[in-house]
């Protein structure tokens, strides 16, 4: 599970265990910014991608935003190669995003679908769940390719 990364830590301090534990076990999830490594969930050939710019947003990109990224890891024969600069749409973000009915959604990891400059996905399949925030952002093609819409 994503949120348990910091659970197992030794606390030598004498302060109360409860407060220290609760502070450290809650990972504060933030925006997707420069140097954030994201998983690629389509079959475009890339595996991992590092964000170099979040278009729109001073603090960073969130669920449904587009980013510019550099391919760090790729499958040997794929449409994109390592080192290429690509655009991507964030389809899963660990940071919660508010929905219009007031609730919040969060996913397990940070994932991106590579698109071209016009916003059309490069790959032909999308893996894992995607949020329906994409409909509002006009990424309908990704929604049609998705197997599951959260």
């Amino acid at each position, binding site marked *: *599970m994503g949120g348990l990364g910091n659970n197992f830590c030794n606390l030598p301090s004498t302060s109360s265990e409860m407060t220290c534990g609760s502070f450290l076990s809650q990972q504060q999830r933030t925006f997707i910014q420069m140097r954030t490594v994201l998983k690629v969930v389509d079959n475009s050939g890339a595996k991992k991608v590092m964000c170099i710019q979040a278009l729109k947003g001073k603090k960073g990109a969130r669920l449904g935003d587009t980013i510019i990224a550099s391919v760090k890891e790729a499958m040997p024969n794929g449409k994109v190669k390592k080192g290429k600069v690509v655009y991507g749409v964030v389809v899963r973000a660990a940071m919660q995003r508010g929905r219009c009915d007031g609730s919040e959604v969060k996913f397990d990891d940070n994932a991106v679908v590579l698109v071209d400059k016009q916003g059309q996905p490069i790959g032909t399949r999308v893996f894992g769940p995607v949020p329906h925030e994409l409909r509002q952002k006009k990424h309908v093609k990704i929604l049609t390719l998705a197997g599951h819409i959260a």
Partner: protein
Amino acid sequence: MRLEKCWFCSSTIYPGHGIEFVRNDANIFRFCRSKCHKNFKMKRNPRKVKWTKAYRRLLGKDMTQDSTFEFERKRNRPERYDRNIAENTLKAIKKIDKIRSDRASDHIKNRLKTGKIQRQKEARKQLEQDIHLVKAPLALAQDSSLYLPKIKVNVSQTRTEENQPMEG
């Protein structure tokens, strides 16, 4: 708008509350508040956490089977809006709620009944045995109204007999 159930504690989640967590295998977990969310992150099993409905139902502390639960089944078909139906539904919701809560409290009362009877029996026994802590036996012997009718016959005889050697 749909009222969901919290995955951990099974309480209703009203719109605007709570967090929805989507796992990569597309399972959706809804939590009513951060308490449930944090317990989930700790990987606690709600069936073992005493304050959740899951635990209570599993151990039979709360009502599990009732016809009023049929009304709350999830229906995936959207209904065409009809004013009369909506009005009747709202009235019915109130009534069904009341019936369900009455039945649930009856269930709990019945469950606790045996304990109550046991406690009353023990209290009566203690009263018989330890009445001397409250009132002196001599006073009890003189003022017969303080006796429980049951022990009135037995005790008065033996106590007066016992007291005489004690005082002497």
